[in-house]
């Protein structure tokens, strides 16, 4: 089942902050965040595995809620290089019925202007 991302698009000025959300109706095993620039492959940002986990550094970080049904990506003091499409990829059960397949959200287009 596809996770739902919000918002669909964000426009920022350099230095502004943004939050991108990724929600699922089912508890997830993992959330993977990727950024994709136009015409390029997705680039891995981070993975979250545990309910209540927070990860990342000062500028780009993410959280995974206790129920493991929502993750948020936080972009702080945005830079021009942050522009791109952000995807969350969600994993269900490792082993068993799933071999690491990621189901991606529809993406959030982030545009940072000078």
């Amino acid at each position, binding site marked *: 089942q596809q996770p739902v991302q919000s918002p669909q698009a964000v426009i920022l000025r350099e230095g502004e902050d943004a939050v991108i959300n990724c929600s699922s109706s089912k508890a997830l095993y993992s959330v993977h965040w990727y950024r994709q620039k136009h015409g390029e*492959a997705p*680039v*891995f940002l981070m993975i979250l595995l545990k309910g209540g986990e927070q990860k990342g550094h000062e500028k780009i970080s993410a959280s995974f809620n206790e129920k493991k049904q929502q993750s948020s990506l936080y972009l702080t003091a945005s830079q021009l290089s942050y522009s791109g499409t952000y995807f969350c990829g969600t994993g269900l059960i490792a082993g068993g019925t799933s*071999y*690491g397949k990621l189901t991606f959200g529809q993406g959030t287009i982030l545009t940072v202007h000078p």
Partner: protein
Amino acid sequence: EPEVTQTPSHQVTQMGQEVILRCVPISNHLYFYWYRQILGQKVEFLVSFYNNEISEKSEIFDDQFSVERPDGSNFTLKIRSTKLEDSAMYFCASTDHLGVDEQFFGPGTRLTVL
């Protein structure tokens, strides 16, 4: 730094023709994936491959698709009789730790079916 490579970067073919997309995953990885991305849309899972066999496939991955790991390093996706709607970017990915680690994406092959 190890990386996933894909060839060709761009393939143009006529409808009904067979195409083979090639990938060289990172050498010590065990789990391999193909994803596709139609222009402007999200990344979609096609198939996962482990221990020389398909471990999971999506509804998109019908009888016209097949995958192989012919020689222990290459990982190929064959489309037997291409359709216009197969036009997309195809990404190969690999990982060494199922579900808990980054999936490394290759740069992609842009397939154009005329």
